[in-house]
């Protein structure tokens, strides 16, 4: 018996450790040369360094590829340089935004802020005075009411697109898409023109909810449609084969199967509107006192709280207050978003 050895799998096309080391060395060399360029030439500052670093490093890699292989490989390396640059440029603002909010907002956070409103404090008082209880309550009420209005409409739209699939499905899909592009300030103006000016003459939390619904419906409808499309047709056919009517199939099989997907739709809808500012400024009045009744009187909200502290203050305390509110808002958005990711990541039904 001869011993047969099975060769271990090879990946000759993959980048080898040596090649990676070479590239890393070239990038480091690029950084050094860029530093020299900043010291010796007219280029200066962080921008000068970043620009010269990028061009020198990609030029070095380009030359190396040209030397080792050919022009096609060298050009290819340029594309990867530019794509990496683009992703870095995309990430810089995200990192900068989140770190700014965390660092600045941290100073504006204290435990009393969840127990007080701003009736007895002005935005320029020390941050320990007053709080954002009214804003948090107002946001929760307004978003809650908006959800009560938007969810049924959004779900019905999604059901029309996936279950009924009538002649109008394509135009409706288009209109939902168009609706998601309606500028938020137009939603506010619309509520003003249809309800506030001719009918109620009063800015209330309910008007804020209605304006937010216009922005929320398309998000819920589109996400719910995607989630309902994931439900396998076998389930629908099984329901019908058991003698169920379409109504029983949808209510007893399709919607329960898509439950976690629909929760995701709701969460993404909330995340979409929770930070909306423009319509809130136009129609919800904006109060400094606690108001539990959306149907009467102005209502505060987190975006309004931040907006007011930022624009009417001007002192360090007011800025700290605004960033503190922003941190709370960002934490809410990130947790909602992570929850939606977690739920939609699970297998449907």
């Amino acid at each position, binding site marked *: 018996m001869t011993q047969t050895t099975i060769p271990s799998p090879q990946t000759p096309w993959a980048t080898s450790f040596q090649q990676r080391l070479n590239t890393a060395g070239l990038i480091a060399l690029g950084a050094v040369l860029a530093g020299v360029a900043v010291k010796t030439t007219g280029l200066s*500052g962080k*921008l000068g360094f970043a620009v010269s670093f990028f061009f020198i490093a990609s030029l070095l890699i380009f030359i190396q590829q040209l030397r080792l292989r050919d022009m*096609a490989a060298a*050009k*290819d390396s*340029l*594309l*990867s340089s*530019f*794509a*990496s640059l*683009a992703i870095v440029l*995309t*990430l810089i*603002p*995200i990192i*900068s935004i989140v770190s*700014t*909010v965390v660092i*600045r907002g941290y100073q504006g956070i204290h435990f009393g802020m969840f127990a007080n409103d701003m009736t007895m404090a002005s935005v320029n008082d020390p941050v320990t005075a007053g709080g954002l209880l009214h804003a948090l309550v107002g946001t929760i009420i307004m978003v809650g009411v908006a959800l009560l209005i938007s969810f049924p*409409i959004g779900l*019905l*739209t999604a059901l*029309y*697109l996936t*279950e*009924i699939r*009538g002649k109008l499905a394509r*135009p*409706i899909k288009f*209109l939902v*898409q*168009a*609706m998601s*592009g*309606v*500028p938020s*300030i*137009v939603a506010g*103006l*619309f509520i*003003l*023109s*249809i309800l506030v000016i001719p009918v109620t003459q009063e800015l209330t939390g309910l008007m804020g909810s209605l304006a937010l619904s216009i922005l929320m*419906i398309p998000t819920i409808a589109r996400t719910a449609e995607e989630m309902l499309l994931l439900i396998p047709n076998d389930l629908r056919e099984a329901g019908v084969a058991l003698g169920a*009517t*379409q*109504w029983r199939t949808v209510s007893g099989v399709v919607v329960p199967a898509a439950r976690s997907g629909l929760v995701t739709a709701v969460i*993404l809808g909330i995340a979409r509107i929770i930070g909306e*500012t*423009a319509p809130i400024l136009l129609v919800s009045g904006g109060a400094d006192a606690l108001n539990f009744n959306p149907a009467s009187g102005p209502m505060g909200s987190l*975006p309004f709280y*931040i*907006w007011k502290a*930022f624009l009417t203050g001007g002192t360090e305390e007011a800025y700290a207050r605004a960033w503190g509110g*922003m941190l709370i*808002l960002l934490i809410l*958005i990130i947790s909602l*978003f992570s929850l939606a*990711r977690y739920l939609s990541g699970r297998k449907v039904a």
Partner: protein
Amino acid sequence: MTLLENRSAAIPAPREITTKPRLSDQIFRAIVTVGGMSSLVILGLIALFLSIKGFNVLKVEQLSFITESKWEVLQDAEGKIAESTFGLAAMLVGTFLAAFIAIIVGVPIAVLSALYLTFYARGSVKKFLVSLIDLMAAFPSLLFGFWGFIVLMGSAEYWAKLLNKYLGFIPIFDVPAPIFERSPFIAGLVLAIMIIPIVTAISREIFDQTPLDRIQAAYALGASKLSMIRAVVIPYGRGGVVGGAMLGLGRAMGETVAVYTVLNVVYQINWQVLFGAGGNVASLILLKFGEAGPDEVDALMAAGLVLFLLTLVVNAISDILINTFGKKGR
């Protein structure tokens, strides 16, 4: 054999079948259809009511509402409104200016990022970057505005000065006075950062739909990544990417709060992107709304109508492009 004897009885009589739904289903279908029409109804109502409120102003101003650039309410000695002129042109120019800067800066970065995410990033890194960029799309515009004002402004002012110093001979980079703060350029940069996640997400989806067999065919012919992308991905996804860019344009044109915080809203036509004055339609509405009298509110409604129709057209074009090129390919 009883079975044979009863054979005639075993064959049921032919019966009528119908495809007509039962009453419960008819009700269900009616309710869902009515609910499904809601987007049509809401969009129709928006157009209708903004037109009704803006009608008086539009009737007086007619076409000069969008061609003239004068927004004035003159009061006489008793505080009554003596004369008012409403022309939106300066703000329309500002809207397009800021949105185009956003597109010029944002779209190349977004498309290259999408290429990176689709063809370079792998495994968990890719997953993490995709969720991070999707999360960024969910950030409120208020946050972008404040960050732009507090953090970006300092750096952007420096970049604006550099542009002015070296490219100042080009008319749009010239400035009448050395005020670089709160310029359309900076507002455009903030808008660019806002649309990057949106355009990236759509481009990535389009690139993901490139048929794998064509990609592999290109590789099998010995193509490098660059030539594969040029020969397969770009021709396949071009329309969809343009659609994504149009969607970004629509977002940028309708943005209110971020532009209002960053830009120094002044009512004048300003082509010089580095000079600290300008505005857009949405920020004008927010600025003027607080102290507007009934007449001016009507004018603002008309401005809202113009903005609504503008974004509707842009979104419609983008939707058509994404759907024709995204789903079916060439």
